[in-house]
């Protein structure tokens, strides 16, 4: 099997290098100077400020452009708790960005910039990388909000330390992601750095800087990035609406809508505009208990409607008739679970 790959791979490599220079927007940067790589990365890096304003402590993080239309990939966090954010670009533009959605599997979020007809430089989500231990890397992020306005974001250097599952790094973390990450030897996971990018020396994307986490056992802070192909996967899920379509507020409401009570679900209290819809408790002898729903399950979709927030779930239920089975998609651990619940109409029994 390995032998076969060896024979095939070089051909691919040569073809890829030959094609790269004529690919226009996504020119491969192999052999480019650092200045070129820096410029390339800076143009694609953004600073994200939560709607709370610039003065709010750590209401900032990093992001990267991933489409010419102005889609920005970043990490889901409290900075995105409002439905919109302010995004600073390297060319000094400050644009409003709408939070398109959050991928609960990877904790990745997508923000769409108000760019009208603007065409943005971006990182190719299709780029494939093959990182290996000791591979030299550069990280671009706005750690500690050192850069403001059009000031270039910070650049750190390091090597790939290991490709390892996040959970293998002893203990549990404040992120649900448990798959492989790229551990690096640079201090990249600092306040404000989440959503920044790790690139190879030619400027091509390797991964996205994850949230600050530390091992509960050793207490050590971790420095890691989510693999770029996983980032692409998450962004794709969000943009394509594969986790359900966004809720169409113009649809007619059914005569009687399903309710939390009719399903036997209680969500965690709705405290911020984008409270994630985690199940807080399941009522005894309810449809939810029958379907074996559990506290900490995250409601991803109701019917075909994507539910990124507590409010979304409320809106989705409003559009769901109470007298039909309700299909709910849940995220449990790092698995997606589909269940069907038959609401109990009050007084029908």
């Amino acid at each position, binding site marked *: 099997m390995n032998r076969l790959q060896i024979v095939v791979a070089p051909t691919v490599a040569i073809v890829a290098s030959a094609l790269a220079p004529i690919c226009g927007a996504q020119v491969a940067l192999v052999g480019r100077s650092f200045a070129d790589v820096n410029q390339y990365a800076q143009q694609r890096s953004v600073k994200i400020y939560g709607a709370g304003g610039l003065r709010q402590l750590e209401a900032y993080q990093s992001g990267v452009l991933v489409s010419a239309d102005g889609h920005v990939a970043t990490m889901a966090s409290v900075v995105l708790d409002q439905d919109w954010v302010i995004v600073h670009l390297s060319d000094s533009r400050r644009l409003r960005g709408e939070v398109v959605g959050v991928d609960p599997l990877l904790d990745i979020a997508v923000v769409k910039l108000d760019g009208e007809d603007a065409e943005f430089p971006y990182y190719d989500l299709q780029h494939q990388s093959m990182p290996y231990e000791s591979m030299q890397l550069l990280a671009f992020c706005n750690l500690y909000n*050192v850069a403001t306005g059009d*000031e270039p974001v910070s650049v750190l250097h390091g090597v790939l330390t290991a490709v390892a599952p996040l959970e293998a790094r002893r203990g549990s973390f404040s992120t649900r992601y448990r798959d492989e990450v790229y551990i690096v030897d640079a201090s990249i996971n600092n306040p404000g750095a989440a959503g920044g990018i790790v690139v190879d020396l030619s400027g091509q994307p390797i991964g996205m800087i994850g949230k600050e986490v530390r091992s509960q056992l050793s207490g050590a802070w971790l420095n890691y990035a989510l693999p770029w192909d996983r980032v692409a996967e998450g962004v794709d899920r969000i943009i394509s609406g594969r986790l359900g379509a966004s809720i169409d507020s113009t649809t007619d409401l059914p005569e009687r809508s399903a309710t939390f009570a009719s399903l036997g679900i209680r969500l965690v209290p709705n405290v911020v505009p984008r409270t994630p819809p985690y199940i807080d408790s399941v009522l005894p002898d309810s449809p939810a208990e029958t379907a074996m729903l559990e506290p900490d399950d995250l409601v991803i979709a109701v019917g075909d409607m994507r539910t990124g927030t507590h409010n979304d779930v409320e809106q989705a239920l409003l559009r769901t008739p109470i007298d039909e089975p309700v299909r709910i998609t849940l995220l449990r651990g790092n698995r997606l679970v589909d269940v069907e619940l038959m609401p109990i109409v009050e007084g029908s029994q």
Partner: protein
Amino acid sequence: MLRLLSVILVFIGSQASAASVAPEVLEAEAKRVRVIERVSRSTIAIFDSRGQGGGSGVIISSDGYALTNFHVTAPCGPAMRCGMNDGRLYDAVLVGLDPPGDVALIKLLGRNDFPAAELGDSDVVQVGDRVLVAGNPFLLAEDFRPTVTYGILSGTHRYQYPAGTLLEYADCLQTDAAINPGNSGGPLFNAAGKLIGINGRGSFEKRGRVNVGVGYAISINQIKLFLSHLKAGRVVDHATLGATVTTLDDGRVAVDDLLEESDAYRRGLRYGDYLTSFAGRNITTANALKNVLGIYPAGWTVPIEFVRDGDVMAANVRLASLHGQGELESLIEAQANKPVPIQPPGPKDGEDEPQPKIPNIRDLAAGARVPELPEEVNKVYQARAGFANYYFNDLHQQRLAEKCPGWRAFSADQRLEISGVDSRGHEVAIESTEQMGSFRSVRGQFFANFSDPNVPNDGPPGSGGLMAAIREWQTLLSRGLEGFDEAHYMGQLPFGLGQSRHDCLVTIRNGLPTYFYFNRQTCHVAGLEHFTADDRDPCTVRFSNFQPWDSAELPLMWVVRFGENAYAEFTVDHYQQVPLEESVDE
């Protein structure tokens, strides 16, 4: 194909064959080692005179001047001990302080062949440049051989807010080379080993006092602007424009507050103007102004450009002191009382060797050491309010006095008479003594009486005080610095048409300051500025075309200005001194 095969062998786990590292890689490594050997020699470990505390520094001249942080020297007082990588300790004395910029200049004593670092140019460095940090983090270097860390520049032209008004890092360099407590004051070198910054801060918030990849260095180009002021033994203040600006949504930077007594106001800057350029740099954000303003010492004059109603206007603006008189002293005292202990984190053992708890047969312990200045330091230290070490100021005053070709050209007890013609051929005549002066030109003749010290003389009208200015010049060149109530050497400031740097000596008489500017090569008094009020432009006189006169040299060309206006310009025919008795009836 052979290569491919060997790769497969490596992959399946067999013993790798002998290393064949590319010669370019080994040469690059050897070059880095050579650079580090060189820069380690000029890197020093700094302790207070009792051998406590600590930080880092770097020697910048063979006679022992070294740079470090203000926050490193603050708890030391005027004396410190410096360890070099040859294992030897030297006494050092405080020379100058820049508390707002967190810089201190010290001087190592006892040698004239100290290994000095070469100063680089921090304005040409770029993000991504490889850099070296040397210093004494956590005081690990018990043998004084520095810790060297390697990284890249993560950012340039960074702004880091001050704590209160001190320790502002404007236009600083950001690096991911490890900077830890104890590295403070130590050097940041480029890959060629040239000094590009002084490390002093880091974003340590995350892990307490341990590096997390973000360190900041004061740019060496900022320090170059301050260096002559520091060598003057002064406590140097940073500058204010007297105006604040705000970044508008359209990306322009507008003046949103302005002091009417500021030089910027006198030069025409007004509320609502758009500031576009400051000291040659484009201003696109309020931070950009903070950055460039932060690199100049108070008293510096910089060109600015601003836009009003679509018109671009330009002016040279003198920057005022950020702090009021005496304010810095109390801040320095406060800093001295909060030394930061630099201890390795984690457990600490007690006594190095367990000692028997028995009375010693012969206790050789000397009495507790009294922290007094070492003799070598005492010789080169002089305390005076407003100065870090007045001894060094005195040195520069003496230097100027010795080198100035016009020094003692005049006699204090004689009347100075100067006659000349202006550019249109009109006669100009000046008479000046300690008590009175007169100025005659095509505008008429004007008199000044200096006998009442409480009445400032700003005549002739429109000159800003030319007759008083001439009297100050005459006093300087007759009685020297003894002729004034106070005098000190300021450092170098831009002056004259080309705004080239001149040695600046400040004299004060009756509370009114005069700035004398000395050409750095010839040491001629190239001009002066005499102030008759705090919030008023000075009378500026520029001298040129120096010619021998008696045993001295005097200027034949005079240009007199007040604010934006030229007052007079004339060529001297002759200088003459007349005994006072002969002119009683004049």
